[in-house]
């Protein structure tokens, strides 16, 4: 059948079972929006306050559902406003297809109104990007974009479509949904070799990252941990893969990781690393990371092998595929002596309670209690993010959404909106700080317009807490620009947007506010006033090792 470019775009979205698109209209995408109008019963388009919000919403949607997030923006500023969202998705390997309009082909390269070379801009932050130069290529380029986004290590793909292409007409033939390239690890010898090393280890530890979530390999991590009695630790991206209260789960590794996790990895004789890239927030001193251990690295991305930390053995492929085959070769085992040593590493970091004031850990505890095991949490970036990673009761991998790699302040609100739309949860908990929240609080209008039960819990210390913490520790308390004197009345602003607003300063007030917000079923803001001096602990400074752990 003959269709125009905009209808073909919609058809390829439908081929790929896309029923939700986030975006913002504009001149170069008017034809596309006209097609979306026509197909509105099949694809629901959500307009955000700002394209950045739409890009984070597509990201949050993808992380919470496992489907590919789709975001649509117009040319020029519409396209550049997606950049932070695309980079966020790229760093955390989130499947996303970003579609940008561009000026018509004859106007390209003439500095036309709202023209920008977005494929050039996004080259280093996408897996791949395309400019559609011929209507005949449109459908296949879009299909390729979906294929690339989900295959191997997932990530964002951008397709730039000039306006004349969205109006041009060509023959369209439907095709089946794009599927990811399949992996089948068949190097049996390598598996046996690695299994033997793990089976013979006296002090083994499993260290896993966000790729375990992407490949749904959590089940096998759990199996190996249980079967061979091996302790495990994880990056922030993999919080929830193992239950927070599982005895073998040592928690978070790295800069703000648990003392026990860091010391265990430091003293281990074998480290099985699964789908982690040893970022500088985990392997702070890559040359000294797990120095006593035989390092085994499983990753789908060959370029991660020996990039930051060198491995003795590596298996390249899909984590679920490899672990399912490795698990069979792992023998039942006990490591009681090792666990005894590990238990001696445990060190609780004291945190204040009972003084009537509200403290970060109490906030996280109350959220965990009221949210229950299905609680879906989305964070922004900073101290609150670390407290959320450390203290929330993580039980499911897909229930903790956070910008780990890029560390995007302002990620949370959009992502929470996308996650709520994708999952239809009765509540999504957006945990934020006063710094991050000010970046994109405008998305409140989106949550209100669509009646989305996103509850924003803002830990307000009237400071850029993480910056300030570093200034306290490393810069002689010279608080350069980290104490903005903002007078924002969160309750009034929330109400101004049409959301519910609460402000609290004690655990009791917070509990009451959260209960009320959850009952109301709509968007709400809860301001939690906390002390400026609250710190994220323990902490290993950049480039440091377990010998440099700071406890206070």
């Amino acid at each position: 059948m003959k269709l125009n470019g905009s209808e073909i775009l919609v058809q390829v979205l439908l081929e790929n079972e896309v029923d939700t698109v986030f975006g913002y209209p504009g001149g170069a995408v008017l034809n596309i929006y006209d097609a979306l109008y026509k197909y509105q019963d099949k694809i629901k388009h959500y307009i955000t306050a700002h394209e950045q919000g739409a890009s984070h919403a597509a990201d949050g949607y993808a992380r919470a559902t496992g489907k590919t997030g789709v975001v649509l923006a117009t040319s020029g500023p519409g396209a550049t406003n997606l950049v932070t969202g695309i980079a966020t998705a790229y760093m955390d390997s989130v499947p996303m297809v970003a579609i940008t309009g561009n000026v018509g082909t004859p106007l390209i390269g003439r500095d036309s109104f709202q023209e920008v070379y977005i494929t050039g801009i996004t080259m280093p932050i996408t897996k791949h990007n395309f400019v559609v130069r011929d209507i005949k290529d449109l459908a296949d380029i879009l299909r390729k974009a979906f294929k690339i986004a989900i295959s191997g290590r997932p990530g964002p793909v951008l397709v730039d479509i000039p306006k004349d292409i969205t109006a041009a007409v060509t023959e369209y033939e439907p095709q089946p949904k794009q599927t990811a390239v399949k992996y089948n690890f068949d190097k049996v010898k390598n598996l046996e070799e690695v299994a033997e090393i793990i089976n013979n280890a006296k002090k083994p530890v499993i260290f896993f990252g966000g790729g375990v979530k992407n490949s749904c390999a959590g089940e096998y991590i759990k199996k190996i941990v249980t079967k061979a009695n091996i302790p495990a630790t994880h990056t922030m991206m993999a919080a929830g893969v193992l239950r927070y209260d599982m005895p073998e789960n040592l928690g978070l590794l790295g800069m703000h990781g648990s003392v026990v996790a860091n010391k265990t990895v430091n003293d281990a004789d074998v480290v099985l690393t699964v789908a982690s890239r040893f970022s500088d927030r985990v392997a702070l001193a890559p040359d000294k990371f797990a120095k006593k251990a035989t390092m085994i690295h499983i990753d789908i991305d060959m370029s991660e092998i020996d990039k930051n930390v060198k491995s003795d053995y590596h298996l390249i492929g899909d984590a679920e595929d490899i672990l399912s085959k490795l698990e069979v070769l792992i023998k039942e085992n006990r490591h009681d002596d090792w666990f005894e040593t590990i238990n001696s590493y445990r060190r609780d970091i004291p945190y204040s309670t009972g003084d009537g004031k509200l403290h970060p850990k109490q906030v996280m505890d109350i959220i965990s209690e009221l949210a229950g095991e299905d609680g879906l949490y989305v964070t922004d970036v900073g101290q609150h993010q670390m407290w959320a990673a450390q203290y929330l009761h993580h039980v499911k991998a897909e229930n903790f959404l956070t910008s780990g790699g890029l560390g995007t302040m302002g990620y949370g609100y959009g992502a929470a909106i996308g996650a709520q739309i994708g999952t239809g949860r009765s509540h999504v908990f957006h945990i934020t700080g006063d710094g991050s929240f000010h970046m994109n609080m405008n998305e409140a209008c989106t949550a209100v317009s669509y009646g989305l039960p996103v509850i924003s819990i803002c830990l307000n210390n009237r400071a850029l807490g993480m910056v300030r913490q570093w200034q306290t520790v490393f810069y002689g308390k010279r608080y350069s620009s980290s104490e903005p004197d903002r007078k924002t009345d969160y309750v009034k602003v929330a109400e101004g947007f049409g959301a519910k607003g609460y402000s609290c300063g004690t655990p009791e007030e917070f509990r009451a506010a959260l209960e009320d917000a959850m009952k109301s079923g709509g968007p709400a803001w809860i301001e939690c006033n906390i002390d400026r001096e609250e710190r994220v602990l323990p902490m290993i400074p950049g480039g440091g090792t377990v010998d440099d752990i700071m406890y206070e």
Partner: protein
Amino acid sequence: MKKTYLSFLVDNHHGVLTRLSSLFDQRGFNIDSLTVSTTNDESLSRITIATTGNEDEIKQIVNQTRKLEEYEGVFEINPYDSLIRELLLVKVASDASNRSSLLDLATIYKAKIIDISEGSIVFEVTGKPAKIDSYINNLTKDYCILEMCRTGATALQRGEVRMEK
């Protein structure tokens, strides 16, 4: 740190050179020289990049480039079993007093004279980068180079080795 010649086969698309070279920049690798051309298969381009790095660094940049969608193949040129060539055009100030010695030097390096104008001669030399370096050194020492341009290395492996998709 050693000089390494990498030979890439890539799809002959818009922007593929930008993608590859930007990847080097992004990952902090220097490009000492770069040549690009289409091949006997018109859908493919061959890009030869000379870079400097230790073994791990070269492995890392190769693995990064392999992730490009338009990547079709790469190999490291083995310097002991390959043909590495580049071309130099050099314009040297010349008058009657130095012409014959310039021609003597040109003979040693098998440089061709391709232009003689008022006050200058242009030579063309093809050879291994080291030979070109040496020729330029000699010219710089005793003569005045007015302008020069070298293409950067391009390379093929001898014999059976063929890089295909």
